[in-house]
Structure formats: structure tokens, C-alpha cells
């Protein structure tokens, strides 16, 4: 039998649908760190990010019986993580002005030049940069994840890269 860690996401999903727990474990370990980092990026709170991690995989388990994975697992998970993390953030900031978006990058160390450069980007462009450079999605996957036309994604990325290059000079 193939090592679960070597199987594609589609193969793992099919195995989980047959009740294979080791396939779920492989899928979980494949996306755990990405999901929790993403959640942290949106909600900015460590415990909340861990709760979002658990809620995301609970959501995945619920959807699995009828799930037909046609794209990357990341494009399936991203909207769920974002929604759950922003809900946590809303709950945490119930009495504070609502800012729906990506928190500045996690910082337990002093901010570096990259963080400073990113801080100058508008929210919409920052999200595209994150998805492209940190999450490694293709442009068409970013368009699917954000439910935007490909052209909009390209123009946002182009503007962001221009700005980052300008800041660097």
C-alpha cells in the first residue's frame, strides 16, 4: 500500500471517504501548519488560531463525504479558514472598531524591512501578495480563492510588486 504521505490530495480524500483514518492524518499533517499560520495571519491570536485550525478540519470532515476535489486543497480551505478566523477576530473585538483583513505579520521579534514594506500595501493587494509569495498559489488559484477575475488578481499583484520595488529603492 502507498505511503499516505506520498498520495495526492485527491487520493487521500477518496481514502478518507472510505473511512481511512491514516489518510486523514496525512492530509492533516500536510496542511496543518499552513492552516494555523493563515488563521493567525487573519485573527492575530495564537489560541484563536488553534481553535480555527480545529474548526477548519471539523468543517473539512463534514464536507468530505460529498467532496470532489477539483483544485488544490488550499483553494478549498482558504475561504473556510479566512471566514472562521475573521469570525474569531470579530468576536474578540466586539467592542472595538472592526477591521476585516489581514493583521500585520506575526511578530514576536522586532519588525524587519519586509514587514515594513508590506505594511504600506493596501489590504486587497497585501492579500494577493500573501497568497502568491507565502502560500505559493498560482494566479488562477488566487482568483478562485478570492472569487475575483484573473485580470483583477494580476493588476493587484502588479501594483503591489511595483510598490514593493519602489519602497526598496
Amino acid at each position, binding site marked *: 500500500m502507498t505511503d499516505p504521505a506520498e498520495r495526492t490530495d485527491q487520493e487521500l480524500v477518496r481514502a478518507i471517504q472510505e473511512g481511512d483514518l491514516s489518510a486523514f492524518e496525512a492530509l492533516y499533517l500536510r496542511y496543518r*501548519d499552513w492552516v494555523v499560520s493563515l488563521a493567525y495571519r487573519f485573527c492575530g491570536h495564537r489560541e484563536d488560531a488553534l481553535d480555527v485550525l*480545529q474548526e477548519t478540519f471539523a468543517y473539512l470532515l463534514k464536507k468530505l463525504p460529498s467532496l470532489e476535489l477539483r483544485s488544490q486543497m488550499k483553494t478549498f480551505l482558504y475561504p473556510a479558514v479566512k471566514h472562521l478566523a475573521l469570525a474569531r477576530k470579530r468576536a474578540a473585538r466586539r467592542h472595538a472598531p472592526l477591521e476585516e483583513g489581514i493583521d500585520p505579520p*506575526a*511578530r514576536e521579534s522586532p519588525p524587519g524591512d519586509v514587514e515594513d514594506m508590506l505594511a504600506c500595501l493596501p489590504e486587497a493587494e497585501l492579500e494577493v501578495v500573501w497568497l502568491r509569495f507565502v502560500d505559493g498559489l498560482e494566479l488562477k488559484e488566487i482568483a478562485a480563492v478570492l472569487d475575483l477575475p484573473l485580470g483583477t488578481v494580476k493588476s493587484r*499583484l502588479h501594483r503591489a510588486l*511595483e510598490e514593493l520595488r519602489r519602497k526598496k529603492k
Partner: protein
Amino acid sequence: MSNAKPKDHLDLLALDSLRAGEGTPDEKAHLEACGACRGALEDLERLSSKLAGLREGFGGVPGERDRAILDMARRELGRAKVRKLVRPRLWWSAAAAALLLAAGLGLWVVPARRLPLLARLDPADIDRSGSVDILDAYTLAIRIRAGAPLDPSWDLNHDGVVDRKDADVVAKESVSLRRRTE
């Protein structure tokens, strides 16, 4: 490798495509020929690796959280297995129930809709056509008149003899049956 500068340099999106290994053959060819674009790509790659470093910001997931999530999966997949096992049984039970119901309905419906089947058992079905009708009364009357052998079961009024009165019983029965089925 040439350091000649082609007229139009690659734009940032093209450079980003090349960085991600998605560049077109034309873009790759341009990069080979253009030192400025190679320099721009190196800048972008440096930015990319710095951004990728931000991914590590969260740190690790505690073991107890992993266990909680895997326990949740174990429970959910266990329930799914039970549902898978139970569903076919339910299906078979439903199918069996439907069959019994159909059989029951059949027994109930047949006398009304398919009278001929049971009518064969009816002594009034003189000509064994499967239904009791005025032709049975006529056939019986003919047989009585002709002196043909008569089946004792045709004594429908139970007076001990098969005669015209029994033919009248069949006639009445055929009329009443017709009324019942109409």
C-alpha cells in the same frame, strides 16, 4: 549568456511567473538574453524568500491539539462507517417492507381489479371464463335445458337440485358483480 538588452524588458508579472517556474518559452528566452531582467528577477527572488520566511511566524501546533483533531476525525469517520453499514440494511428493510406492502395490496386490490383470477374458484363461473357474467347464467340454462351433465357445485341456492332457479342466481350474481365493479 548574452548581456545584450532587448528593447522591451519583462514586466513584473512576467518576472514573477519566471520566479514561480510558470514562465513562457518567450519569457525564458528573453531572460537568457537580458542582464537587466536577470537582475530584476534576482531582486524578486530575494523578496520572495523574505516573504516566505513570514510563514514560519506561528510556531508549532501543540501535541494535545493534534490529538484532539485526530480524535475528532476518528469519531466522525467511525460514525460515517456505521452510517454506511446501516444504510444498506435500512435499504433492504425498506425494500422488504415495500414488497410485503405490495403483496398485501395485491391481495386487496386483485379481487376488485382482477376478478377473473378468483372468479375461477367461484362455482357460479359456469363456463370457467374467469368471471361470472350473464353468459354463465345462459350456459347453465342451456345445459339444464339440454339435459347435459350438471356439476353439483352449481346448486347455488342450496336446494339440493341444479335447475333454472340456479341459473337465475347466476344471472342475479352477474348483475350484482357488474354493479360492484363499475
